[in-house]
């Protein structure tokens, strides 16, 4: 029997997802024996035409990381979709947009102007252009795209390998499922079915009932490693985030920022954490927080969008609105 074909591909990403694969170390060598890697731009010589030549659905699985920013990325993932039996979104950026997704709060014109004109180290106001001339030679660079999209806003996605970057055990779990052909239902996120709070080592320290009088920012107080962040008034995205990372940030005494995406059955990570915090607002047990209390609380957070949607803005309700605007603009 021939080995299953596997492809790795990257879109707008930092290279951390590739490092995560390299970090499999010996395990990577073992996996490499069992599969035929047909496409991996970072490590292997490749041509797009090689992929085009493959028959449809002949790649067993394509792991695609990075968010979608350019038309070219879009074309490439469409091609991979056509050639692959399964597609897995790999890492936070492909899964929910990731940190670069925060760019969806800014217009493209502002991006170029600020970086090439406003920053103080710029010596003049030259701005890069898609088409330009230097010494009489025509030169071309791709245009910057307006919005960041997740992979499943671009193509049909079968599975998700979450995390920024995904930890080794999660990657191996995903790879093994494909190798053994033991595939869970479509749409499965290869992580836990619980929320981070459910598996957090500080969970037992999280009082059943407590109220927050005041919110604190991580640099303002010294966190007690024995206490739940939220009970200290430090915002932690644990209640809204899927478990499976091994509580990596918590183990470094820092609150979660949500890179594993929304916890199961939650669609909008930011809305979920907001309601979780609102319900902990400093009021007596039976009362429900008034709108005024909630808005006072939110006002005390300097950048609620950036905090609650640090990784998931493109995948969120807010992100959708942006995208809809773009579609309207284009039509």
């Amino acid at each position, binding site marked *: 029997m021939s080995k299953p074909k596997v492809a790795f591909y990257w879109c*707008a*990403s*930092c*290279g*951390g997802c*590739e*490092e*995560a694969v390299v970090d499999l*170390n010996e395990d990577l060598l073992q996996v490499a024996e069992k599969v035929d890697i047909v496409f991996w731009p*970072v*490590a292997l*010589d*490749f041509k*797009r035409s090689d992929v085009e030549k493959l028959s449809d659905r002949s790649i067993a699985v394509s792991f695609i990381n*990075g968010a979608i920013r350019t038309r*070219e*990325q879009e*074309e490439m993932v469409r091609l991979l979709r056509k050639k692959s039996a399964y597609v897995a979104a790999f890492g936070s950026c492909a899964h929910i947009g990731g*940190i*670069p997704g*925060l*760019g969806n709060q*800014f217009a493209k014109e*502002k*991006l170029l102007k*600020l*970086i*090439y004109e406003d*920053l103080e*180290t*710029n010596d*003049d106001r*030259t*701005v*890069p*252009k898609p088409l*330009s001339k*230097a*010494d009489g*030679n*025509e*030169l071309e*660079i*791709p245009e*910057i795209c307006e919005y960041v999209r997740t992979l499943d806003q671009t193509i049909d996605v079968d599975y998700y390998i979450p995390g*920024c*970057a995904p930890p080794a055990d999660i990657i191996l779990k995903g790879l093994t499922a494909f190798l053994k052909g033991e595939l869970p239902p479509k749409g499965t996120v290869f992580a836990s079915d619980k929320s981070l709070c459910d598996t957090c080592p500080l969970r037992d320290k999280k009082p059943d009932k407590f109220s927050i009088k005041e919110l604190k*920012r991580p*640099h*303002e107080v010294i966190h007690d490693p024995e206490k739940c962040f939220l009970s200290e008034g430090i915002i932690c995205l644990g209640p809204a985030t899927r478990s499976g990372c091994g509580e*990596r*940030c918590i183990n*470094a*005494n*820092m609150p979660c920022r949500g890179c594993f995406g929304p916890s199961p059955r939650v669609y909008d990570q930011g809305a979920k954490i907001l309601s979780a915090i609102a319900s902990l607002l400093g009021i007596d047990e039976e009362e429900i927080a008034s709108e005024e209390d909630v808005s006072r609380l939110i006002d005390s957070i*300097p*950048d609620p969008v*950036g*905090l609650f949607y*640090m990784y998931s803005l493109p995948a969120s309700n807010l992100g959708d609105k942006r995208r809809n605007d773009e579609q309207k603009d284009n039509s």
Partner: protein
Amino acid sequence: MKKITIDPITRLEGHGKIEIFLDDKGNVKNAYLQIPELRGFEVFSLGRAAEEMPRITPKICGVCPTAHHMASTKALDDLYKIEPTETARKIREIIYCAFMVEDHALHFYFLGSPDFIVGPGAPAGSRNILGVIEKVGLETGKRVIEMRKRLRSIITFFGGRVIHPVCGLPGGVSKGLDENERKNIEGIARDAIDFAKFSLDAFRNIVLKNEEYVKLITGDIYRHRTYYMGLVDKNNKVNFYDGKIRVVNPDGREFAKFDVKDFGDHIAEHKEEWSYVKFPYLKKIGWKGFTDGEKSGVYRVAPLARLNASDGMATEYADKEHDAMFKTLGGKPSHHTLAFHWARLVEMLYAAERLLELSSDKSITSKDLRNLPERKPEEGIGVVEAPRGTLIHHYRTDERGVLNYVNLLVATYGNAAAISMSITKAAENLIKKGQVSDEILNKVEMAFRAYDPCMACATHSLPGQMPLTLNIYDHERHLIKKLSR
């Protein structure tokens, strides 16, 4: 005029592209290295709470996230005008030294050394880590993987995750260590020193004993007389974590030495319409185009530049290696671009020795990890030496610590102009009368791979491995040759 068509691969990847134009005699007229992507961290960081920056900016690059994490954390110290506790400062440096060793090892064994250990003339198919392992033996290959894994475990221990660590806070770090962990790190440091010495020996045996390689290293194709920049301690020794920025001229004389808060007086950035990358230069000299020499403001950063800009290394063995290297290269400063590889190994040894110094200090198990900020924030600037050069984060905030100005001078930009020049020079030497051999791609690639240009910082690909396209046009601007890998 014929319209230039761009290989879809390049456009798809957002990676590097080199365009070479020939004159009517078939010699190189112009060459351009284009970086076709931009993600805009300086823009979407605006409006964020400053303390989140050490968690946001590492995403610029998954290969050197620790460098951004540390530069950002130091910018926060400055923003709140608060010093880290002594313990926290040492822990940060421990993390940083572990990072420098593993990152330099990654570059040397996986990305750079295929050129030397396997050989510059070897077919591209064998010029990779597997080719290196074949040459140095499987045991060595395993040793490299194991060493990197253990060094990276130090970063994971403190930072929670090695890809994008999270432990930095203004005035300190979020996690300390106990005596057991200290001993563990001390053990790793000892092995790292042996590993670095072993790597230097391998370089001596395989590269320096081969006349052809030595000729290549010291030849004119890969030589540029430029200024050099790097962080130095109070004795002008190389330092990665802190110190003053020192610049030497092409003769090795000190040209400037300044505190990072004054970087705006010394560094300006030139731009070209055809690339998203900026080209920093020495403001006091000015931008004179892509040219070297004393009158051009172009400077270089990263391993060889740091060694050139210093008076040596602060640890015993690394300092000896430093002296030996410059002796062989024919004096200091050295302008041989390929010597970046060698300097990288000298730095690896320094970082390992420094890691041992720091981790054998029993006082680092103190629980005094944080000073709490009290001052109102306004402006903060932080600097570190990233593996690929001087890295500066500059923030301004309102009084709640919400960012309203962010400027990031990423390390790879520091060498952007020099990389362009090195490529042009290599192309000029290798293309004559329209004769283009396939080997040129190799040789041109070597020119920029020596810099370890982490294009992830500029775009998003692993250093040295970027699928590169080289297009060559004749004097009528017809595409006559396309080479890509």
